[in-house]
């Protein structure tokens, strides 16, 4: 078919397709991206940015208020009950919490999507096994599972991240399985299989991009959940152990000084709120952006 000379066709009135309107990035999304970039920079350059080591005590400046509430520039965000610099602790906490939240979200998404695709591809027994696991996970109170695991295996950061990664994988598995089954029984996935594509190509090249928008929304919902879960576990003393610190950890310990020194708690709380909001905004925008039919 390739031997048809290109000049044989009457030159069609080539009307170039209308230039795709470049949608402007909304202001809020720009702000969200900036904030997330800032968070990443802080996380990666924590050692360079923090003015003090996060464990350094300054006993003469205990519970010193931040600048703007009568504090001094030495401790811009104030100090806590032991005289530790809140800014330095915040920077270390951001690194720790982002590591946990991104790591756990990635683990649960990869695990869930993989199991979901396996179930959709093999059907039969594999599917039943995956669905049984999903039901088990969904019906098990996660805190109890986490308590049991941490009690038996002790607390280590990699284990903690993996454990949080187990939280919520069943949602990805359900979504991935459902959408892959419906794509496979009729439509584009069946068509590509009919062309002779390997399962890797069908799932990696076609099914995954098509269900990515749903997965991204699910991930943006799970990300704040994991930050909050980490806060909860840290608050119970099961998460990040002192003297190491995380955002949830800071909120938990700052609670005791809520009336006298609210800045200890307010600083990490606002970081949690703004970060989760930014992730949601960015995820929403990305979902629309990645869909050619919505552009």
């Amino acid at each position, binding site marked *: *078919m390739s031997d*048809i000379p290109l000049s044989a066709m009457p030159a069609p009135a*080539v009307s170039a397709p209308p230039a795709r309107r470049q949608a402007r990035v909304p202001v809020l999304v720009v702000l969200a991206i900036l904030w997330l970039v800032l968070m990443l920079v802080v996380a990666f350059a924590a050692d360079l940015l923090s003015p003090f080591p996060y464990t350094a005590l300054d006993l003469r400046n205990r519970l010193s208020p931040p600048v703007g509430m009568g504090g001094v520039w030495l401790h811009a965000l104030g100090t806590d009950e032991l005289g530790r610099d809140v800014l330095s602790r915040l920077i270390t906490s951001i690194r720790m919490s982002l590591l946990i939240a991104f790591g756990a979200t990635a683990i649960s998404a990869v695990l869930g999507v993989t199991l979901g695709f396996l179930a959709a591809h093999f059907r039969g027994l594999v599917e039943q096994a995956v669905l049984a696991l999903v039901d088990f996970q969904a019906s098990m109170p996660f805190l109890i599972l986490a308590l049991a695991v941490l009690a038996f295996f002790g607390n280590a950061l990699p284990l903690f991240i993996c454990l949080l990664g187990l939280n919520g994988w069943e949602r990805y598995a359900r979504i991935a399985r459902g959408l892959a089954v419906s794509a496979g029984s009729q439509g*584009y996935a069946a*068509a590509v299989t009919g*062309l*002779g*594509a390997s399962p890797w*190509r069908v799932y990696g090249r076609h099914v995954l991009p098509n269900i990515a928008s749903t997965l991204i929304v699910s991930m943006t919902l799970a990300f704040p959940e994991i930050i909050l879960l980490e806060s909860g576990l840290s608050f119970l003393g099961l998460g990040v152990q002192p003297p190491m610190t995380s955002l949830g950890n800071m909120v938990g310990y700052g609670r005791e000084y809520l009336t006298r020194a609210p800045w200890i708690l307010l600083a990490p709380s606002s970081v949690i709120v703004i970060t989760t909001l930014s992730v949601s905004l960015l995820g929403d925008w990305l979902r629309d952006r990645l869909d*050619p039919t919505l552009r």
Partner: protein
Amino acid sequence: MTGDETLLHAQDLVRRYTMRRGMFGRPVEVRAVDGVSLTLRRGQTLGLVGESGCGKSTTGRMVLGLEVPDSGGIAFANERMPPPGTPEWRRLRARMAMVYQDPLGALDRRLDIGTQVAEPLEIHGIGTRADRPGRVEALLRSVGLRPDQARRYPHELSGGQRQRAVLARALATSPDLLVCDEPISALDVSIQAQVMNLLSEVQQRSGVAMLFISHDLRAVRQMSHRVAVMYLGRVVEEGEPDEVLHSPAHPYAQALVSAIPHPGRRGGRIVLRGDPPNPVARPAGCAFHPRCPVAASVCAREVPALKRRPLDGRLVACHVAQGEAAPGAGLPQNAMEAA
């Protein structure tokens, strides 16, 4: 191009599904396809007609090897069809392709047309990365699309253009066999003619064999070298399109043909009485006998075989048409009616 070489032979294909009625119902067996034999020659088109649910599409999927028949066998180019998912089966995909009823559903809406047309080339390692854009351009031109439409997404094209894109993708590997499953029924009437002409053109140019599945008798007559009429999972009549669609021998084919509207014609339409066929409760004997206007008593007992009629050598599965039974007046509660 229209050599008599057999490309595909399907023998006694049977496909059963089990279906459960209600939550506690007993599983019921549905015979979607019940002993269909087909032969396709290189460069020729076999039209497959019948009402919805008669097993046309299932037959098409089995012929392509997408579904495994419960019994019977398929030989493609004198080799047995390998089981789905095996490497041999995957390699065979380059030699047979499918054109779908719903082109929007068959295309990935996140990839542009050019990428999707190039995909069979990538899968089967045809050509080099560098010459693929040129091949895609030639393919698009050969189905009447503009090369710049390679950058369009499926939702940006019209129905007819999408079907052309699906066809370009199917033709990318220069297959020997094309199964067209109702390729025009989702299109406007004006576009239908264009797509049919395109299919004929492609066939003349590349010598591809086609299985053209449709319920549109006129489309089948225009496209096909041979026609098979299916009823409830069986072929009831097969032959040249002019014979089958002008003077059908089987009572069901007669009713089907009489349903083609003709301008200015009044009366003469055979309206079948009785329920539409239900593959779960298949009647004994000839599956058509409860609705047949000329059924005799033997029709309720014995399944007629598809064989040559002694009179003129036409392939038909009917006791009455074969002259084995005198035409009855239909069995009770059936009648022929002119409308």
